[in-house]
């Protein structure tokens, strides 16, 4: 299993350069993370969009023209459609969001026909590198689905298990979080967690341990769980936190970043090709890790 973001970069570098297409590129697109990834030999970029802006960036960064490809398509929507087509056909391996708001970008990317949606739903996994433990941890869905149904939570669970496999977790321990650790019909997320837990017990998710409902204190602290009389293989040592809804997920991820100062990067799952989203709640320092995750996901989705 991956111990930290440095190891993720090391593993990604070992994969050799992947063709990464950014769309749409404008003068406002921040390509600094890409320069660093190029320097590390991780990616061969293809910039689709405003050709002049792309060329001036090349000049500023002193990047030889042979080290990447520029495709001139000034219309943002067309640039994105072209880029999606390239990854679908294998002309590129990774898609990265350029200068388009996440709403319209995901609207196109998550279209089942024209886009890259593969599973029932796509979901975002936030990957954390907490200093207190010697491994990365994951929480999901921190962005895409607002209030997922149980059927959608099943897919969200399968999506994160896939990423965990790519990150070397052979048998991940998963905590399905809710407000309390008892099943309470008045709190629907406790019922969802219990269903997922039973499905896991019946091996419907493969080789994983999934426990729920758990409240966060039992999930992160074995001592707290013991005091509450909750005993399981997951308490105090979860690899993955399944969140009850996006309000809890999105805000928890942010609190961990802003108050906990914990490194965090995101991966989009449930799609047929790796997509780097560069979402606004991801710190600039960790955007490189999003490229690393995409590189590791190549051929594994």
């Amino acid at each position, binding site marked *: 299993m991956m111990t930290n973001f440095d190891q993720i970069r090391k593993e990604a570098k070992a994969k050799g350069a992947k063709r990464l297409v950014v769309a749409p590129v404008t003068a406002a697109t921040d390509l600094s993370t890409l320069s660093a990834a190029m320097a590390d030999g991780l990616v061969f970029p293809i910039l689709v969009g405003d050709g002049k802006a792309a060329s001036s960036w090349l000049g500023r960064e002193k990047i030889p023209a042979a080290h990447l490809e520029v495709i001139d398509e000034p219309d943002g929507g067309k640039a994105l459609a072209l880029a999606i087509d390239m990854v679908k056909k294998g002309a590129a391996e990774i898609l990265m969001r350029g200068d388009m708001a996440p*709403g319209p970008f995901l609207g196109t990317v998550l279209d089942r026909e024209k886009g890259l949606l593969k599973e029932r739903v796509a979901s975002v996994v936030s990957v954390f590198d907490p200093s207190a433990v010697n491994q990365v941890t994951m929480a999901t869905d921190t962005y895409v689905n607002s209030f997922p149904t149980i059927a959608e939570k099943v897919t969200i669970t399968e999506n994160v298990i896939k990423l965990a496999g790519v990150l070397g977790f052979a048998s991940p321990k998963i905590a399905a979080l809710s407000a309390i650790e008892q099943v309470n019909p008045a709190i629907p997320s406790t019922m969802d967690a219990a269903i997922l837990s039973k499905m896991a017990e019946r091996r419907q998710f493969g080789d994983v341990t999934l426990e729920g409902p758990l409240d966060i204190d039992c999930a*992160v602290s074995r001592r707290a769980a013991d005091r509450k009389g909750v005993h399981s293989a997951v308490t105090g040592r979860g690899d993955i936190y399944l969140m009850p809804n996006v309000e*809890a997920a999105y805000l928890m991820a942010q609190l961990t970043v802003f108050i906990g100062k914990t490194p965090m990067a995101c991966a989009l799952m449930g799609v047929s090709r790796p997509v780097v989203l560069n979402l*606004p709640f991801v710190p600039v320092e960790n955007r490189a890790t999003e490229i690393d995750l995409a590189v590791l996901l190549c051929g594994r989705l």
Partner: protein
Amino acid sequence: MIRSFADMDRLASQKGPKRLVVLAPEDEEFMLAVRDSAAKGYTRPVLIGDREKMERLADQVQYDIGSTEKIYEKSRQAIADLGINMLFSGEVDIAGKGQIPTAYIYRAIIREESKAGKGKVVSVISLWDIEGLEHLTCFTDTGVNITPDYRAKAEIVRNAVFLFHLLGYPQPKICVLSGKREINGDIPSYQDCLALKKAAASGELGACEVMEAASFLDIFSPGRKAFRRGDIDIGKADFPHIMLVPNLATGNILVKLDFALKNVRRRSLVMSSRGPVIIPSRSDFRDSILGEIAAGVTVAEQIKGGAAS
């Protein structure tokens, strides 16, 4: 103004002892915390619970309860009713939850509130003391309302504003937290945020202000511009005093992140119209329970001193 838990601890030892009724101190961590609160001069406890269990535990933690007032009762609901009634009748200044399901205590508070003609929405306020932040902050409601509607949220905000006025903050800032992202439009919690902003501006929520920000990203990076983790400085951020959570699951998960984050401490209480009811989590240990008792003593003292104008 009470800016930190250290301020509370200082005030508790200066202004104590206050009368604290403890509902079922039938666990070692609770009994230790009660013993320490008495020894530090924070409280004069009244213990309600199972005689055999309380005596055994007191003995275990070497707490001489010979001269401590005790009421023997086994029924959980009776313990809750009795203790909360003592708070509302003025016999005690603070009530504290021990080994008893929280729902019983909420039920007892709701009953007493309706008898007193207040009919208040009962909500839990979880204070956070964050390293580097120059004032206290809180999450609410972290315990009672599963999916509060707009009306309930307005009441929850009023309860927290009342507490912050007591703690010496004349115009607390409120962040109505929401999972609103750049996709999927305005979810209900964000619509509540907009409505509460209007309500606050027209004075409906008391002296307070509802901020523009609806997430930590908004607080630390207004306009949601790209930010560097290395540049985050909570001391320089416009950080709220009150954070209204959209639902119970979110509140519980956020507020108990103190188990994972090392720079945060938590103390939870219910502000009833007659005084504080402290609500330690079943997973809390002796020191945090003692801290919650200090918070209760502080609030009781501020009520007595008429700090809420």
